[in-house]
């Protein structure tokens, strides 16, 4: 077991180190009702005014509970959804302004790995064809021999055997299927990969294999990840920095260890305390903050601070009207500026 202090702290980096820059991203979905005539009766504010950046070669973790908008964020960043508003710059290029053709070419650079290793692979295609399809689409190979060589290489990169190319998804285990999804994403040599819950459906021992693989590939190819998951332990392990989402908003963003050892926002603190550590001795004395109530619906989100209805100090809240903005409380550590939600 080797201990490495993961990736030296990258304070004070110049703008040029930023690969993905997201500003005021909004993704609203219309809510319709009516059987024959569909009437728009409201909007789901799945993602509301997100701003964050990802540096070259780093992993930004995105955590939060079901429905808080993690997947929507990943998809809107990759322009798989057309954002309602906001900017997404990739390597200085404004993605929201690209036309369909330009975006298609850009897809070579930005890829996604999906959550569900069962549903995301076409059951009628062999593993080889699933992995090789993007090679054909982007015309990255000249002939069949090259194609087969490249597929074999991709399979071995993700720890599968080249002879498995002819097998079909149902012949693989969950972890192996997730590897196929990773190989497919890597086929086009991307620089940025959105990993949407890539290990959530897997058993812990298999989860560890996939997490290690993602780390190895990052080291080898200098990949940049947006790593989405609801399991904060996994996110903290793989990420350099972590953004915590709640109801379409980022409430806190900080370097991974800083977030764990010095959480400021009430939601972050509750989330951390809700995650048990596999150590009964530590658990005996750990502080537990048990939140009351459920996550409100994004259909009618509370005005002002979105966490207010579940905040233990809500009576003192001063931002019931306007949404708090992120402020930098210490280098690289940003928190939604709601006084009652902030500790100390």
């Amino acid at each position, binding site marked *: 077991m080797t201990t490495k202090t993961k990736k030296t702290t990258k304070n004070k980096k110049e703008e040029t180190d930023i690969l993905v820059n997201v500003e005021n991203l909004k993704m609203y979905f219309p809510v319709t009702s009516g059987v024959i005539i569909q009437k728009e009766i409201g909007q789901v504010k799945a993602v509301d005014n997100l701003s964050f950046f990802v540096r070259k070669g780093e992993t930004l973790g995105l955590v939060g509970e*079901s429905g808080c908008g993690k997947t929507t964020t990943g998809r809107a960043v990759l322009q798989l959804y057309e954002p309602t508003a906001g900017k997404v710059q990739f390597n200085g290029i404004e993605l929201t302004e690209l036309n369909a053709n330009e975006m298609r070419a850009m897809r070579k650079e930005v890829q996604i790995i999906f959550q569900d290793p069962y549903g995301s692979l076409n059951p009628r295609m062999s593993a080889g064809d699933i992995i090789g399809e993007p090679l054909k689409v982007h015309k990255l190979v000249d002939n069949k021999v090259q194609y087969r060589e490249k597929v074999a290489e991709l399979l071995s990169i993700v720890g599968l055997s080249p002879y498995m190319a002819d097998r079909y998804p149902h012949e693989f285990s969950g972890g192996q299927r997730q590897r196929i999804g990773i190989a497919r994403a890597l086929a086009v040599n991307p620089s940025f990969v959105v990993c949407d819950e890539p290990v959530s459906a897997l058993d812990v021992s298999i989860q560890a294999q996939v997490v290690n693989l993602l780390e190895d590939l990052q080291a080898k190819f200098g990949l940049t990840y947006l790593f989405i998951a609801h399991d904060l332990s996994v996110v903290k*392990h793989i990420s350099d920095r972590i953004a915590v989402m709640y109801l379409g908003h980022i409430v806190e963003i900080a370097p991974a260890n800083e977030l764990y050892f010095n959480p400021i926002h009430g939601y972050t603190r509750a989330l951390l305390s809700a995650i048990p550590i596999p150590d009964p001795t530590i658990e005996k004395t750990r502080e537990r903050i048990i939140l009351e109530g459920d996550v409100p619906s994004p259909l009618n989100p509370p005005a002002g601070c979105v966490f207010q209805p579940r905040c233990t100090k809500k009576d003192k809240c001063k931002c019931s009207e306007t949404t708090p903005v992120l402020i930098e409380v210490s280098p690289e550590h940003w928190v939604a500026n709601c006084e009652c939600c902030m500790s100390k």
Partner: protein
Amino acid sequence: MTTKTSKSKSTTTKKDNVLLEVNNLTTHFFTQDGVVKAVDGISYNVHEGEVVGIVGESGCGKSVGAMSVMKIIPNPPGRIVDGSVTFEGENLVDLDESAMRKIRGNRIAMVFQEPMTSLNPVLTVGRQLTETLELHQGLRGDELIDKAEELLARVGIPDPRGRLSDYPHQFSGGMRQRVMIAIALSCDPKLIIADEPTTALDVTIQAQILELMQGLAKDYGTALIIITHNLGVVARYADRVIVMYAGKIIEEGSAEEIFHNPMHAYTRGLLASVPRLDATDHVRLQTIEGLPPDLIAPPPGCGFAPRCQKKVCKCPETPPAIVEIKKGHYIADCKCCMTK
């Protein structure tokens, strides 16, 4: 080190407060492809008021083991082929269905992973609560409604009286699981078996539900079996931990022993493969190479042998016996899988 053939022998001293005694329980599924040895000779005890965690990876037989205790194994294709389940002095394996019905939901209750599928969508929550109360406790009229209201209040549902007339879909996932727990509590069971009770729920809701269950178990002296694949949940809530692998128990001990002094290679591998929230340095995760065996044709000896790193297994032919390696700490006696 003393060899034991069945757990019951080694704990006879504590026999007085043993509530559930599972002995050599063996449940197989007779399928077209062959006999699936889903649960293959497991033995354990649960004492009164104790919280026991059962962990293991997908398909290792946790649910089938619990369903066997409750005798709700779909037959065909499944059948309890051997062993006994002694609950309050009675062997449940010998009981007929009508006798079992008096025990299920009454003295032993079960909470499942998916509250939506275990609640009836066309009946109000109140009706589902009163149904069990009527059946097992013979309550009628106002008494029934009052008790139902009290139960919803006990699991922390606001406006309990008003919510009795609501249908399951009008509740959130966490609230539905609370209703399931209220139903489980309705007859003051001696034992609650919770099979992945919070896996489908968000972490903050998961914490709410588990705290609730632990609190209720403490207050009413109910024993609790929590089945989960989440090692953290077990560390936080269980007094004793059972680790299953490929249809068998491979290690059992107090939570402290299992987490601080794991002896079986599989338990150690499992613990080293989960990242810890409180880690300060980045340590590469340990992996367990390979996959669990096919339960139709498992290895004849130690089930973990094909994945064991030492591969000097001395038990390739016969399954290792369970030995008590330290007081209250049991392990499958496979020399290569054991650490000193």
